[in-house]
């Protein structure tokens, strides 16, 4: 009698209940309860997130989830951002689009990150999905404005087109004019990555005019300051706006027009863009500053006094991206004005210079940690650090979830004591119990990894460079960090022992990247043989790894869990350690 109760709900009721469960984690848990829940759930899953496009094949996804409306895919490893992954490595989306075109006619949303997207893929999207609404290409490459023209022309109900940080081929042509006059549905348009020649401004103005729901618009650098007012007056409902270049000769009428246009935008909360800033035009923003929660000035080469003035008008700021021109003095002002600050990113203005060009040190970050109790996310480039400063930051900000510190010169010790920075980072992981992401830099021994393995229980992503003394360091991390999903390592003396001893751990992670370390070819082959659930890929552009002794270290290694087996699109410089593939090679 008890057993029957469990199955007394008709499928439709369960389906309805499941529709309120949105998170992937919960959906996955639901599908594990019993066979019938698994069946019901898979038919009503509408959104799929695939963190590594090679972890599963399109066919497998389609077979399990036949009614998907929204898909998100990530391709290349994170270190591709820093040119460590050679061109041609992979991450092609075409096959996914081709298979989904047949299986998901109602697919409405595609979000891609670090993938290679060709014009052919875009044209296929344009003609295959009648209800296409959202296209986000984050850090993608391989396409041109021709592909964009196809999307614009065919997608009648397009809501979002976001090309942030992608590389688009410069072809002449007014692709924006391809949006038909009947297209009035745009909510978000981000073309900030486009080079100069690619946008027809009059077409853009007309588009903005006829899209009353446009909330988010990021222009590209070519759009000049005098044009901003025109756009803003056509879209006073904007919440998120990215300027083009913010430079012009100071003219009173241009200034007052601009200031007036900004002040008419009562919903504006987030600003970005600001290439080539002329400081005299910054006061045009003052009317909206009190409402601003997010400000991206990371391209603005303006000096600290101007930054201080601007920031002091923004008491509600939650997110600030800025160049190190802000200096310690600017960060001290930030700390006293912006008590709601949650995220701070400070980028280097002269990353390859030998001497510091600005007065930005660990003091700036310490000041922010003291003044901004809600601080959660930090990305900070600087030239010196001390254990004392890190300990202070850790104690002031126990709620940190993301902490990425880049001391520009590798292996820089504590500038006060000349000690390694083990204790400082140790304090970070110890005090910040919810830390999910950590990037290390400076002089570090195996001890820092001991701290990380001991305290970093919620750590999901760890980036390591020029650190550690021996395999013990890697072993601490792999054996201690229970939540670890992504580990990326470069130029560390980690070899075979820790990797082989913790092979099983790799099956619980999304991926491991190791380059310029000391993992031997033999160990890679062994892992490939013994761990069928992992794809073990060796990358070497100079010569095949088997042309050298097995004890030789490999150049680059990328290991990821996969149910799809070895991939078929590897370029000549990528070798799979899977036994089956080796026979074919």
């Amino acid at each position, binding site marked *: 009698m008890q057993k029957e109760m469990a199955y007394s709900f008709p499928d439709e009721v369960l389906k309805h209940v499941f529709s309120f469960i949105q998170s992937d984690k919960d959906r996955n848990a639901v599908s594990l309860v019993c066979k019938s829940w698994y069946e019901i759930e898979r038919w009503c899953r509408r959104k799929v997130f695939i963190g590594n496009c090679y972890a599963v094949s399109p066919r497998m996804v389609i077979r399990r989830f036949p009614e998907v409306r929204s898909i998100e895919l990530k391709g290349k490893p994170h270190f591709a951002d820093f040119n460590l992954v050679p061109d041609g490595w992979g991450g092609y989306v075409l096959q996914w689009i081709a298979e989904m075109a047949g299986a998901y006619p109602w697919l409405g949303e595609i979000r891609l990150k670090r993938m290679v997207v060709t014009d052919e893929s875009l044209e296929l999207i344009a003609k295959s999905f009648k209800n296409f609404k959202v296209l986000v290409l984050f850090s993608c490459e391989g396409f041109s404005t021709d592909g964009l023209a196809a999307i614009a022309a065919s997608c009648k109900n397009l809501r979002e087109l976001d090309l942030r940080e992608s590389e688009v081929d410069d072809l002449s042509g007014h692709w924006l004019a391809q949006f038909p006059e009947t297209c009035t549905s745009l909510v978000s348009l981000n073309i900030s990555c486009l080079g100069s020649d690619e946008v027809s401004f009059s077409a853009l103005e007309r588009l903005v005019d006829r899209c009353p729901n446009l909330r988010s618009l990021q222009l590209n650098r070519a759009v000049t300051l005098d044009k901003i007012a025109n756009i803003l007056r056509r879209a006073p409902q904007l919440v998120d706006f990215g300027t083009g270049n913010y430079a012009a000769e100071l003219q009173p009428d241009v200034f007052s027009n601009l200031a007036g246009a900004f002040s008419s935008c009562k919903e504006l909360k987030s600003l970005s863009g600001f290439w080539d800033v002329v400081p005299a035009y910054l006061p045009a923003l003052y009317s909206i500053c009190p409402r601003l929660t997010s400000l991206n000035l990371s391209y603005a080469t303006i000096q600290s006094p101007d930054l201080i003035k601007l920031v002091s008008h923004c008491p509600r700021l939650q997110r600030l991206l800025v160049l190190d021109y802000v200096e310690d003095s600017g960060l001290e002002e930030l700390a006293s004005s912006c008590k709601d600050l949650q995220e701070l990113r400070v980028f*280097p*203005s002269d990353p390859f210079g030998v001497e510091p060009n600005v007065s930005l040190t660990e003091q700036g970050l310490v000041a922010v940690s003291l003044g901004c109790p809600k601080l959660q996310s930090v990305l900070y480039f600087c030239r010196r650090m001390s254990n004392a400063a890190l300990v202070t930051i850790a104690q002031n900000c126990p709620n940190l979830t993301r902490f990425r510190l880049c001391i520009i010169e590798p292996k820089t010790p504590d500038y006060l004591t000349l000690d390694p920075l083990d204790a400082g980072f140790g304090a970070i992981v110890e005090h910040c119990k919810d830390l999910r992401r950590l990037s290390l830099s400076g002089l570090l021994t195996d001890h820092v990894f001991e701290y990380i393995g001991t305290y970093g229980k919620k750590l999901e992503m760890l980036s390591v460079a020029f650190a550690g003394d021996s395999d013990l360091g890697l072993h601490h991390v792999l054996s201690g960090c229970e939540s670890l999903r992504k580990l990326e390592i470069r130029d560390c003396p980690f070899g075979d022992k820790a990797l082989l001893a913790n092979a099983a751990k790799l099956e619980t992670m999304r991926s491991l990247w190791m380059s310029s370390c000391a993992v031997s070819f033999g160990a890679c082959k062994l892992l490939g043989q013994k761990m069928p659930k992992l794809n073990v890929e060796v990358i070497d552009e100079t010569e095949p790894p088997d042309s050298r002794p097995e004890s030789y270290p490999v150049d680059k290694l990328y290991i990821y869990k996969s149910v799809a087996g070895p991939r078929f699109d590897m370029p000549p410089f990528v070798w799979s350690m899977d036994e089956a593939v080796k026979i074919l090679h």
Partner: protein
Amino acid sequence: MEGSVGCDNDLNLRATELRLGLPGTEPVSIVRSNKRSLQQVADDDCGVNGCKSDDQNETAPPPPKAQIVGWPPIRSYRKNNIQTKKNESEGGGIYVKVSMDGAPYLRKIDLKIYSGYPELLQAIENMFKFTIGEYSEREGYKGSDYAPTYEDKDGDWMLVGDVPWEMFITSCKRLRIMKGSEARGLGCGV
């Protein structure tokens, strides 16, 4: 003489090929690829015994700070943005594309290396093997089928030579050598 020098060099190279540290020690993984210049880091690892890294650069002394691939970890588009600004203020090159109607591919030149229009035009003439006519304010370029034009910051196509040189090099985004009737229409008196 040529042969024996060659031999000597071969021997030297074999003895010191792609190695840091004293001969007979295990090769360090970080030196296998010539492409990665990790001399700075490698120097640190050699310790007190010194390095044989100098053998790799027989002609030039090692640079004081070798750039490491992918470090500091900044995305390329960010680097490019900073670089542009730096060039403008500190005199790095101003590279622009040069196209010529009818030519199969484009070239790139650094405007900073020329001191004025005559030098620039001479260089372009040499590059594409043609002649530009005489410039006059009233009539543009007379005496040839070609006219040098450029695209300025506003996206407009202008005749080269009308504005002062300093203004030109900061506002020029790319050059195009126009040919034929299009060219003759530009700047010529009616």
